[in-house]
């Protein structure tokens, strides 16, 4: 090296070259960096009639989602979903539902960005051909809200047939749960607490733990536990926090022509740390749904065709009556990625009863 001096520019170039060499060397012939586009969507025709005979009739392109992913290496990738709800702005919603960097190995992985907590069966697996009804179950709106997403990161892994995941996400929004649209205190449900990644806080972080078992073909069973002290108006010091714990357990079996799903969830709300709240009583919300269906597609030779039945109960407040939901439906998949759906249901709450007829088409790719 006598008489030779490397400039900084040359040093950097050598380092860059060497890194590039090792990057290519560590790749293999079975992977190519690249970009993937996918998506899903659903059109709904909803007709409802309440006990007074008042009718509603809506035709709504409820969701349109574009999935975009890029794989830098077989371990490092980026994944995202952008959603347009109700096909128009303003009025509908434009949401960045997922956008995260993913590091994945055979045994464990990491996600950081806008991610989904693991809470219930539908939140992470919400493409329309994956569930039976035209609309997602009422339970999946008020007990384990879907689609629930937020800023944060997660670690996940697998040991034999047990999958685990730990996620830390933005705080829930306490004021969205305890105040109604007029700013009046009202014991609400978890749905209003989703921050959706918009200027959120992380005073307490939402802690989400989950496990699932998938050791039998077609069978998945698991549960999750989530907790957060949700700031009121982003100000835990002056306005306090709403304590939230969420628990759910679920099982799904989809094999041998049988389609069965069960999920139970319970949320507890603790108001003891809220300042100036005109109410001191904690409350809980809970619910379940059970789907039973049988694929008769082979009998009529038309792809996958499932007549099904759902029974469900959803209570957002321990003091008021629960919604008791009964629904019958028929779902047909001419191909795996397209589902035509029709269902009829009744929703009872106390002495009132609403009737609903829904018809829809959903797809994913």
């Amino acid at each position, binding site marked *: 090296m006598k008489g030779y001096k490397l400039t900084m520019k040359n040093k950097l170039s050598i380092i860059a070259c060497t890194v590039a060499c090792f990057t290519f060397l560590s790749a293999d012939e079975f992977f190519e960096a690249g970009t*993937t586009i996918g998506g899903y969507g659903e059109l709904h025709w909803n007709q409802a009639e309440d006990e007074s005979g008042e009718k509603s009739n809506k035709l709504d392109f409820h969701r349109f989602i574009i999935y975009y992913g890029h794989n830098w290496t077989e371990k490092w990738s980026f994944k995202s979903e952008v959603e347009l709800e109700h096909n128009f702005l303003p009025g509908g919603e434009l949401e960045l539902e997922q956008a995260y960097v993913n590091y994945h190995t055979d045994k464990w992985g990491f996600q950081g960005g806008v991610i989904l907590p693991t809470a219930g069966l539908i939140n992470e697996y919400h493409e329309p051909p994956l569930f039976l009804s035209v609309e997602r179950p009422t339970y999946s709106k008020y007990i384990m809200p879907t689609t629930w997403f937020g800023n944060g990161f997660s670690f996940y892994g697998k040991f034999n047939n047990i999958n685990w995941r730990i996620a830390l996400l933005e705080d829930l929004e306490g004021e969205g749960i305890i105040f109604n649209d007029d700013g009046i205190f009202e014991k609400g449900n978890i749905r209003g607490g989703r921050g959706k990644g918009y200027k959120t806080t992380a005073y307490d972080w939402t802690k989400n733990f989950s496990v699932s078992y998938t050791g039998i073909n077609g069978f998945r069973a698991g549960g999750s536990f989530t907790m957060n002290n949700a700031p009121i108006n982003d100000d835990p010091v002056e306005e306090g926090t709403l304590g939230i714990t969420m628990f759910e357990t679920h099982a799904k079996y989809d094999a041998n022509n049988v389609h069965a799903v069960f999920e139970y969830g319970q949320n507890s709300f603790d108001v003891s740390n809220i300042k100036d709240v005109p109410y001191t009583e904690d409350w809980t919300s809970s619910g379940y749904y059970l789907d039973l269906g049988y694929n008769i597609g082979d009998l009529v030779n038309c792809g996958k065709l499932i007549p099904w039945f759902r029974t469900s109960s959803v209570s957002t407040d321990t003091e008021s009556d629960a919604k008791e939901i009964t629904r019958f439906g028929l779902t047909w998949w001419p191909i795996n990625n397209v589902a035509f759906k029709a269902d009829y249901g009744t929703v009872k709450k106390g002495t009132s009863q609403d009737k609903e007829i829904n018809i829809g088409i959903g797809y994913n790719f």
Partner: protein
Amino acid sequence: MGLPFWGPNLMMKQIINILSILFILTFGGISDLYGGIREDVEKILKKEFTDSASISHQKFNIPTHIKNTIQFKAKQKFFRDELNVWTIVTTDTISHYAIIDNSLGKSMPITFLVVFTTNGKIKYNQIVKYREPYGGEISSLSWTSQFIGMWKDSEFKVGKTIDGISGATISTHSVTKGIHKLSLLFPYIKSQLK
């Protein structure tokens, strides 16, 4: 070298030459020698067959007309025109052939192995590499073992002859098509394999 900022220094030229050789080797075939997936496959095959079995690797270029026919039937493309194939010889006779290929999951390729008997029946299959955060359950033996005994004329249909996996819909359909694709291909190429 087309890189004037590196300067005329002799030592620098030597470094550039070394790096250039590394790049050429990388693009020109050294990545094949690295063979992470291939090493994994050979470990799987050694475990599946006795130590006395002789396992040899070859690359096989799929003739275009055969490739197009199979892709049309299986409704899935081959990852490359060139396949990695292993011949397994036991007691001085070819007893099995093993082939690997990729099918596409939601956004990442899934590398899978299928071992055929000489008459084209599946003796063994395994997911060699799964690269996605969701759907890794298809790597379980309980799922992959469903294909054992199937051959080109079997019905490869998720939900009917093959159980699906809740939460791995795209992967199960994609790998099922992939295994079907190799089952269809095998009779066409068997006589051309070493």
